[in-house]
């Protein structure tokens, strides 16, 4: 079965992936394809800037209903520079931790006194 290509620039209509609302639109597109069991290629061709405010809803939110292994087995990222790949990596790791334990934030209250 052919892979589904999601063209980020086309959906966001801008080289700047900085808005959480745009990230939500990318999430919807990915989630729909994942729901149909398809493999997905996410292309960042012509995208210049990607912030975590965009990536958290676009990619991180996928971890709410899918395991990291499932997401990574089904998805690949192309036309993207290494530092942005690393950023996606951190977003996925953070999201995995978050959804395993959504109440973790409440327990960070004393963390400022640990250093």
């Amino acid at each position, binding site marked *: 079965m052919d892979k589904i290509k999601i063209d980020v620039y086309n959906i966001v209509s801008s080289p700047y992936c900085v808005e959480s609302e745009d990230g939500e639109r990318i999430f919807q597109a990915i989630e729909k394809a994942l729901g149909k069991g398809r493999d997905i290629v996410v292309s960042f061709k012509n995208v210049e800037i990607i912030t975590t405010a965009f990536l958290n809803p676009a990619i991180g939110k996928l971890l709410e209903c899918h395991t990291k292994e499932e997401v990574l087995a089904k998805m690949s990222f192309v036309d993207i520079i290494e530092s942005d790949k690393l950023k996606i*990596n951190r977003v996925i790791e953070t999201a995995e931790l978050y959804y395993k334990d959504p109440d973790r934030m409440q327990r960070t209250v004393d963390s400022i006194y640990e250093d």
Partner: protein
Amino acid sequence: MDIYTLSSVNPDYYGYSQIIMLYHSYRNAEFEQVQIKINQWFNASLCSCLGSILDLIQSNYNDVYFSFDDDRIRYTMQRNGFLPYYGYDKLSDGYNTTIGYKKLLPQDGKCFSEYVNDQLLSRNDYPEKSEFLKRRIHESISEIFSNAKLHSDTINIYVCGQCFKGKHQIVFTLTDTGIGIKERVNNTLGTNYDSIDAIKWAIKDRHTTKWGVPGGIGLSILTEYINENNGIFQIISDDGFYELKDQKEEFRKFDLPFPGTVVTLVFRMDDEDVRHFDDNDAFPY
């Protein structure tokens, strides 16, 4: 009519203190004439936080007037588009050193990115700089804008910068007049942190006040960028002052609170020692 003097204002504890005191001097005034004299020096990037508090002061029907002991300061503030908000003519920037003052809505994120690209990164001052460094500057500033949008509930976001060619520095300041980090963190966690502890909590990796979605890594990535660049990162929120400089952190308190949050970033444009990703950082997926 009293004259309020701002003197030698830089993006440091004393510079911000003067702007905070100006706000508190007039925060309860109504139908007054506010005369501000700017003496000796005013770092133009701080037009961002000055504009934000003057909007609050003007919302009580106060009129704001400026005077200057040095016309060069006035010219700079006319060229960067700040003084035209107060009746002055806009001047063109023949020196090409200003980074324009803008008042944006939180939902203007993509417009803001275009502004950063046009005002900071497409200029010819640093043609030799790597696309990598320019991209990191753009990302850093965009992360700060996103933070203001997502966490402050502000009405406007005020931005301004200044290019110091001799010092090979770009200074950029972003201000909101939202609820501030202390209130936001305490509302989220049910804590009673003071402003400094709230800032300490907010800048920690994977800490976020946004419920329902993961987050909290934007500021961590930003501090890593600033450390690599040997730049400066400041947060002023409520009565808290935070500065990351030379990889050292400093926390101080102001006598009175700033009505929102100011973030200033200083990037070194002569620093080629920017870490590039090596094989150990390879994307594992």
